[in-house]
C-alpha cells in the first residue's frame, strides 16, 4: 500500500526550483516548472498523500462522497450580465464583486484556527493513516496558506486582487465593501447544533469542514465566471494574464476539495462516541455528516442564490444611480434582467436522512 503517514513538514513542503509567479508586482505562491507548466504550492507530498488515503478508503469498501454539479446555482451576475455592465461603463459592481471574492478567499485561512478535538478518543474505529488524522498535522495549515498567503508570498486573496487589477486596470476600490459583506443577518445567527449528544468541538469542526467543502465545490461556478469574463479582450485590459490567474487559483483548489471530501468520507465510514460515553451510545458517522451536508446544501442552493441576487441588485442600483439618470437606470436594469440565467434549485440534495 502507498504511504499513509506524512509529517506536517512534508505536507507543507514547497516544490523546489520553480519559477515564481509574480502577479502585478506581488510574489504569489505556486510557480512554473521547466516546461512552463503551473504547479500549485505545497502539492508535491500533499497530492500523493490524498490519493493514498482515497485508495485506502476504496480498498476498505467505502464510498468517496461527492457533491453533484447539478446542484450548482449559476454565478450571479452571469458573464453576459457582467459584460453588459462593464461595456456600459458601470464598473463598480464588478470591482466590488471581485474584491469580495478576494476577501472571502482570504477568510478561508481561518480554517487553521478551527479547534480539532481528540479524534482518536471520539471515533470508535482507528484513524491512523487517514486524512482525518492529518487535519491538524498540516492539511488545515496548507489550506490556510493557499487561501491567504504565507509570509511574503501571496495566496488566493492576492491572486484575485491581481486578476482584478490586471483586467480592470487597478480600479478604485469602493469603500462600502465591508459594510455590504457584513450587512447580512445570517452572519449573526449562530449555527444550531444538530447533534447535541456529540462532542461540541467535533460537531463544530465537522460543520465547518462541510461548509467549506460546499463553498469550494460551488466556487467552480465563480472560477468559470471569472476566467471567461476577465479573459475577454473586449472588457479586460490584460485578458491573457488575468484569465490565466483565475485558472491558477482554480488549479490550487483541487487539493482542498479532495482532502475535505476524503476526511468527511472517512468519518462517514466510522462511528462516533457521544458525550454520554460508553459503546452503547454511538452515532453513525454517515448520519452526522449527511445531516450536516444536507443543511449546508439546502442553504447554499435555496436561500443563498436569492440573497446573492438581492445583494448584487443593490450593489448595481447604488452604483448606477451615481452615474446615470433614472431613465437610463431603468433601461439598463431591464436589459440586465433579460440576460438572467434561469435557475430552480433541485428538489433533493441527495443527503436527506433515510426514512
Amino acid at each position, binding site marked *: 500500500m502507498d504511504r499513509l503517514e506524512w509529517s506536517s513538514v512534508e505536507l507543507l513542503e514547497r516544490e523546489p526550483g520553480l519559477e515564481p509567479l509574480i502577479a502585478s508586482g506581488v510574489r504569489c505562491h505556486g510557480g512554473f516548472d521547466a516546461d512552463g507548466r503551473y504547479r500549485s504550492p505545497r502539492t508535491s507530498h500533499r497530492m500523493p498523500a490524498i490519493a493514498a488515503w482515497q485508495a485506502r478508503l476504496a480498498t476498505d469498501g467505502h464510498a468517496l462522497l461527492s457533491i453533484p454539479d447539478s446542484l450548482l446555482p449559476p454565478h450571479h451576475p452571469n458573464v453576459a450580465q457582467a459584460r453588459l455592465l462593464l461595456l456600459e461603463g458601470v464598473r463598480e459592481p464588478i470591482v466590488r464583486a471581485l474584491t469580495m471574492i478576494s476577501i*472571502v478567499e482570504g477568510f478561508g485561512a481561518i480554517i487553521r484556527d478551527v479547534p480539532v478535538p481528540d479524534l482518536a478518543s471520539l471515533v470508535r474505529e482507528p484513524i491512523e493513516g487517514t486524512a482525518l488524522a492529518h487535519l491538524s498535522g498540516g492539511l488545515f495549515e496548507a489550506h490556510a496558506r493557499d487561501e491567504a498567503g504565507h509570509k*511574503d508570498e501571496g495566496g488566493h486573496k492576492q491572486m484575485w486582487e491581481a486578476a482584478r487589477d490586471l483586467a480592470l486596470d487597478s480600479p478604485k476600490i469602493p469603500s462600502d465593501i465591508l459594510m455590504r459583506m457584513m450587512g447580512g443577518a445570517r452572519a449573526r445567527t449562530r449555527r444550531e447544533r444538530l447533534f447535541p449528544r456529540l462532542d461540541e468541538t467535533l460537531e463544530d469542526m465537522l460543520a465547518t469542514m462541510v461548509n467549506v467543502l460546499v463553498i469550494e465545490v460551488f466556487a467552480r461556478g465563480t472560477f468559470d465566471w471569472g476566467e471567461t469574463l476577465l479573459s475577454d479582450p473586449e472588457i479586460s485590459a490584460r485578458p491573457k494574464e488575468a484569465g490565466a490567474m483565475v485558472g491558477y487559483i482554480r488549479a490550487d483548489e483541487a487539493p482542498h476539495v479532495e482532502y475535505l471530501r476524503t476526511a468527511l468520507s472517512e468519518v462517514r465510514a466510522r462511528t462516533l462516541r457521544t458525550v454520554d460515553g460508553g459503546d452503547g451510545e454511538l452515532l453513525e458517522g454517515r448520519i452526522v455528516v449527511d445531516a450536516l451536508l444536507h443543511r449546508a446544501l439546502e442553504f447554499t442552493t435555496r436561500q443563498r442564490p436569492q440573497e446573492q441576487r438581492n445583494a448584487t441588485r443593490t450593489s448595481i442600483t447604488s452604483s448606477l444611480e451615481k452615474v446615470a439618470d433614472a431613465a437610463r437606470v431603468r433601461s439598463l436594469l431591464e436589459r440586465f434582467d433579460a440576460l438572467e440565467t434561469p435557475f430552480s434549485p433541485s428538489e433533493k440534495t441527495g443527503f436527506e436522512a433515510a426514512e
Partner: protein
Amino acid sequence: MSLGLLARFPSLSHAYRTTRAATTAASVWGMYKVPEFVRKRLGRPEPKSLGETHERAAKKILDLALELRGVNIKMCQVMSTRSDVFPPEFVRTLKLCHDAVPPHEFEVVRAVVERELGKPIGEVFAEFDATPLAAASLAQVHRARLRDGRQVAVKVQYPDIEDIVAVDLKNMARICRVYERFDPQPMPLLPLVREMTEHLALELDFVREVDNAERIRAIFAGDTTVAIPVVHREWSTQRIITMELVEGIKITDVEGLRAAGLDLGHVVNALMSVYVRMIMAAGFFQADPHPGNVFVRPDGQVVVMDFGLCKELPDGFGLGLFELMFSMMTMNESAMIRAFTELGFRTKTGDTTTFIELAKRMLRRSGTGRFEGEFTEGMTDELFEAVRENPVVEIPTHFVLVGRVFSLLSGIAHTLGHRANVLAAMGVG
C-alpha cells in the same frame, strides 16, 4: 471650600481653581525635575525606574481632579486612555476617576432641568428620582417617568459647566506652555489639551450627542440584536437629554448574565459584532465601550449607551484595518508596511522597517505569538508603549481611539472567559 459652595459661586471659584491647578502642576513638575536636577549635579546614575514618582504624581492629579471636577476629571479620563503618551502607573491611577465621582445635589439638577425646559419639572415628569443612576464628569443621569407613563433616563449637564470648562482649559493650556518652556524634554501635553478642548466642546453639546445616537441607531436599523435608547427630542436640549430608560444586565456582570441563561460566548460575539460593524463597516463609531455603557438584555440583545464620544473614520479605514489584520495573520511584511501606511502611520525617518518591528512587538503580546484576529489589551499597550519609547513613529489619533476600543472589548471578553476576535466578528466566509 465645599463643593456645593463652589457650584453656587462660580466667579469666586475661578481664582481658587486657577491657583489650585497651578500649584498642583508646579508640585508635580517638581517631583520629576528636582531629583533629576540633584542627580545631575551630583553625577548620580539614572534611577532604575520612575514608577513610584509616576504613581505619586498621578495621585496628586487625581485628587485635584476629584476636587475641582469639570475638565480636570475629563483630563484624567483622557490621560488614562492615552497609554501612548503616559507611563502605565499614570494610566492605572487615573483610571480611578471613572468611578470616583460624587453626585450633585438634586436641587442643582432640578434647577438645570427647569431652566432648560422652561417649565416646572412636574409639568413634564410625573416622577423624577432624586438619587442619580450615575454621575460622571460633565453630567449625571436620573431615572424619571413622563406624564404619559413612559419610563425615561434624563442626562443632566452640571450647571455652569461651560464656564468651568473654559477656565480649566485655559489654565491647563497656560500650565502646559510654561511647562514646555521649562522642561528640556517635554511630554507633548499641549496637543492633548487641544484635542480635549475639541472633544469637550463636542461633548458639552447634547444636541450633537443626540444626533450621534440617531446616526448609530440608523446603522442598526432593522437589526434586533442591538438596541440604542430612543431619544425624546421634545424634552431634550443643549444641556439635557431625555431618553428611553433601558434596563439590562451590565456586560461585565458574569453572574447576572449566567443567571439569565445567557451563553457568555454568544454575548461576546454579539458585542463584538456591534463594534466591528460600526468601525469596519459604517466608519462611524461610539468610541467609549466602557462596561457602564453596555447592557445585555435577557434575550441577548446588546444595548449601547452614551454617544458623547463618537468618531468618524476616514474613507477606506475599515479596509485598511482589515488589510493590517490580514498581513499580521500571515506575517506578510510588505503587506504590513502597505497597511500601516494606508492607515496613516508615519515614521519621521521614512524607514518602514520600523513598522515591522512594531508589529512583531505587538505579536509577542497576542497570547499565542500569532495574530488570530484579536487585539488584546497587551497588544494595544505594547503598541502605545513602542510609540512612546520610539518617537519616530506617529499613530493617527483615530487609530488610538480604535485601538482603545478593541482593547476595552478584549478586556470585557476576557472577563467573560472569551476572546474578542475582530476577524471572526466580521462574520464573513
